[in-house]
């Protein structure tokens, strides 16, 4: 096996176990993994932005293709940097105004399209069958169910009318529809997360084999020993890792859960 693959396996197994050590509690291994993760992602982002934005989207089109209008965007980008100079920091607001205005301009037609028109389009279905169909089959039942769901959920989201009488009943039905949707979404997402977890365990089991020098097993032992030593040292003398506010950290607030 190539040395690079072996080193990669040890690093992957070690960092995975460092992050999993959070299941015990906040500890130096987790902090190491966390800080390394943040640092590497930041470094990677800077390099990616340099090549994808500065070189590909600005330097090449302006210098090689002569698209000078891109300099306007570059100038607006530079204005953001004026925030570091307090006297002219107000100039950065021009860029922010453009960004927010452009963002809203792009978002509004898209929202009308996806959240309004497509929603209405999906709801406008006949609730009684025509020739060739049963008068009230499954398709018609679904259409009716969707109509009731959309109407009642919309009623729940009325803010300027009091939810009393029939409005309250409709809003309550709307909430039931929402909760059923959330339950289905919860199950769906949890299953997806489980597959991610299985993927990590799969890797750890693979890296724990003889081919990889029992990487997972050795590193798990090292981390467990490290945590033991860290706990022992912490219990002897309160160090910088120990937060004096820990005493009441587990005290749950008095607010009831939703």
């Amino acid at each position, binding site marked *: 096996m190539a040395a690079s693959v072996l080193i990669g396996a040890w690093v992957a197994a070690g960092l995975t176990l460092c*992050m999993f050590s*959070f299941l015990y509690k*906040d500890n130096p291994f987790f902090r190491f993994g*966390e800080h390394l*993760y*943040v640092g*590497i*992602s930041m470094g990677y*982002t800077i390099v990616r932005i340099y090549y994808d934005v500065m070189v590909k989207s600005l330097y090449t089109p302006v210098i090689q293709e002569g698209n000078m209008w891109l300099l306007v965007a570059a100038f607006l980008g530079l204005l*953001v940097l004026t925030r570091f100079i307090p006297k002219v920091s107000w100039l*950065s*607001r021009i860029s*922010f105004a453009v*960004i*927010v205005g452009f*963002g*809203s301009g*792009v*978002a*509004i*037609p898209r929202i*009308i*399209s*996806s959240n*309004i*028109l497509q929603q*209405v*389009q999906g*709801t*406008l*279905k*006949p*609730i*009684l*069958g*025509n*020739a060739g169909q049963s008068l009230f089959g499954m398709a018609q039942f679904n259409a009716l169910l969707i*109509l009731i769901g959309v*109407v009642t959920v*919309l*009623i729940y*989201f*009325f*803010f*300027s*009318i*009091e939810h009393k009488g029939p409005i309250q009943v409709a809003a309550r039905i709307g909430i039931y529809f*929402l909760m059923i949707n*959330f339950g289905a*979404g*919860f199950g769906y*997402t949890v299953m997806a*997360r489980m597959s991610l977890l299985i993927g990590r365990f799969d890797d750890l089991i693979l890296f724990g084999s003889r081919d990889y020098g029992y990487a997972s097993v050795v590193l798990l032992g090292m981390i467990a020993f490290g945590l033991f030593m860290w706990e022992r040292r912490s219990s002897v003398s309160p160090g910088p890792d120990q*937060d004096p506010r820990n005493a*009441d*950290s*587990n005290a749950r*607030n008095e*607010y009831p859960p*939703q």
Partner: protein
Amino acid sequence: MIFSFEFRVLSCELRTRNSEPRRSTWRLFSIRSLVAVVFVLSTLHAPRSTLAVSLAPPEQFEAFDMPGDGGGSIGLSWQAAPFDGPTVRYQVYMADQAQGPFTRLAEFPADTHYKSDVDRPWWSWDRSRTHHFYQVKSTPDRRLESGRSYFFKVAVTDGMQTSEGSMQSAVPTPNLFNLAKVNNFLLMLLFSALVLFTIAQAKRHPAIFLRRIPGLDAVEEAIGRATEMGRPILYLTGSDDMSSLSTIAATVILGQVAKKTAAYDTQLQVPHRDPIVMAICQEIVKESYLEAGRPDAYRDDSNFFITNDQFSYTAAVNGIMLREKPAANFFMGFYYAEALLLAETGAGTGAIQIAGTDADLQLPFFITTCDYTLIGEELYAASAYLSREPILVGTLRGQDLGKAFLLLSMVIGTVLATIGGLVGTQAFVPLLQLFRDFK
């Protein structure tokens, strides 16, 4: 040709059977006449497939730039012919130059590809069945460059004979307006007018009723609790950039929260994933501290950038939650898979948690791990609810009226669609198309 040949053979056979010349001549004449009549009749009622139909070249052939697109697409239309049927086929040819060579793009039965088959609204497209239509699109193999002329021909064939129409050219160009989306534009104008009207109303009569939103009532409690405990408040604006409406809503709510933290002199921490959102939030928080009369309490580093990466940002925020132990966590804006990781860690620290998002897949996780959750539009209503400013309250009222309009449209539209289906009429289609999303 085939029928003529059979007729001759038949007559020969009849002639050879007869021995008497005169009688046989008369009989032969009558039989021939009968056969001729039968042949003519059978010709009149024969299926088209067995006939040699004289094919005329496609008439009123037009090539045109497709309206309302970004270029790279040409439309071809020609008049439907009386001989159109499943056995007759149209062939579409294209060339880069008028002289050719022409390459065949498509071949299809003559009773398909009508203008009425195109999914476009009545206000931007002639949906008649009197014309055939074929759209030539740019593909990786065959690129149509905007601003360049392309040449087209359409031929009709029945397998035995082919008739070719005239050549037409067209230039694909990008269009500024897409008329198919006029309903989208009109709805935007309608809702904008509605919101402006209700804002004006709210300014005249500020006492507009707003129903109670428990999650927002808890904002003050959460800030008060953080003040009493002497711990910071952690406020997240979500994972999207400023083009997301939920991020915009989250920044507006941040302004209201910042006013209260300024008044209570509580520390506010806002870690960011997006540098632009961070810079805008710095401005908003600064403004809020000024409005609260506490510019001295404003700290520029209350908004700080961590990283763009989703899970390293999550790990860092989790670390902040564990080490700083904020008394209140606010999760406003749009979230992805990090939602549960953040909210679960926050719940573990004992902080009061208020979430607000329109990410429907993440809402279940917030509901299960947070004390209060603003669901969907409640996030947009939050700023109006917290500030009670007439402009924001008027906007909320306008949104409610807009929702009422859509609700009525859906109910009436469903009734019309049902009647249309039962009666079998297309009379309501133009009306229902007003509420369809066209590309």
